[in-house]
């Protein structure tokens, strides 16, 4: 991991420090974007885009890094993944023009939709995440516990409390 003096040299714009940084972390960035984009030129372009983001505007993004809060490799991986997802979004095929959609599909049916009545903080972020991982990602309790860095009993308890809240909420609505 690059130490403080290396980072300072890097941010001050020293060419040697930049080249050392590139040599050390290019492989990590390649691995980070793997799976989100195709191998080869596309992945290489994306890594270049990450490096551009890091040194753009006189290393503005790199200056936001704080070694006391997270490891550099972890931070770089998150930045690289975020850049790759932004690129994916940009290259997503354009949506169908409204004129090309058959009129029948645009017709509004006279169906009553459930009104949006959600208490803002009904579930805590962690409760939402536990339920998402359980019911949308089909993860088991042990994996969720590992992901969240808690013990499985905490996951079960979080799930239980969340379900109590949901039951109470929807029971109150139906009354």
């Amino acid at each position, binding site marked *: 991991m690059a130490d403080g003096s290396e980072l300072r040299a890097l941010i001050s714009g020293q060419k040697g420090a930049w080249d050392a940084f590139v040599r050390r972390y290019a*492989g990590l960035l390649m*691995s980070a974007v793997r799976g989100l984009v195709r191998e080869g030129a596309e992945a290489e372009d994306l890594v270049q885009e990450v490096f551009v983001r890091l*040194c753009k505007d006189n290393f503005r993004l790199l200056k936001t890094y704080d070694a006391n809060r997270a490891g550099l490799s972890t931070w770089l991986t*998150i930045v690289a993944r975020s850049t790759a997802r932004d690129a994916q979004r940009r290259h997503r095929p354009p949506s169908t023009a409204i004129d090309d959609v058959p009129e029948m599909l645009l017709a509004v049916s006279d169906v009553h939709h459930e009104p949006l009545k959600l208490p803002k903080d009904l579930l805590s972020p962690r409760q939402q995440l536990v*339920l998402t991982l359980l019911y949308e990602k089909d993860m088991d309790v042990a994996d969720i516990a590992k992901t969240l860095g808690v013990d499985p009993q905490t996951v079960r308890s979080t799930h239980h409390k969340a379900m109590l809240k949901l039951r109470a909420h929807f029971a109150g609505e139906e009354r």
Partner: protein
Amino acid sequence: MSEPLDIERDPALWRRWRGLASQAADEAAPDPLLVAAYAEGRLSEIAAERVEAWLAADPVRLEDIEVARVLRRNSNLAAPETVLARASTLVDARSGNVVPFRRPTPSRSSWRTVAVWASMAASLLVTGLVGFALGSDAYTSLIGDHQEMALTQQLFDPPSGFFSDLSEESNT
């Protein structure tokens, strides 16, 4: 205390809530440093809430956390030489500065600006004079008699003579 998971009822209840919540949810991405700290398990439960709310709204991002954890343990990862060479050019060797990504707009020199304005002014002047002279010629030809022109008109209307003289000289 917790009860066993209700495989039938709980997912349905969650999906119902999720359907409503997704209409309202619009979680902005947290700072990458906060996400990285979360991936390393450095955040308190309260600090982690911001990241967990974002993950709950967009669970695909959980892969980013997992990838970051895996790569943290692998330090020897190689990249092709082409990648290194391209990235290296982003910082200029001579000045040590970042190479600008946008082509700077060419600054127009002051003499060139003066020349442009001067030529515009000259062309306006010439156009005005020619127009005035042609108008005067038309006017005098309509009147017919040069002798009857007022003195002031002769004073302020030299171009008519200029064009008339030219035509007269060419005739002789």
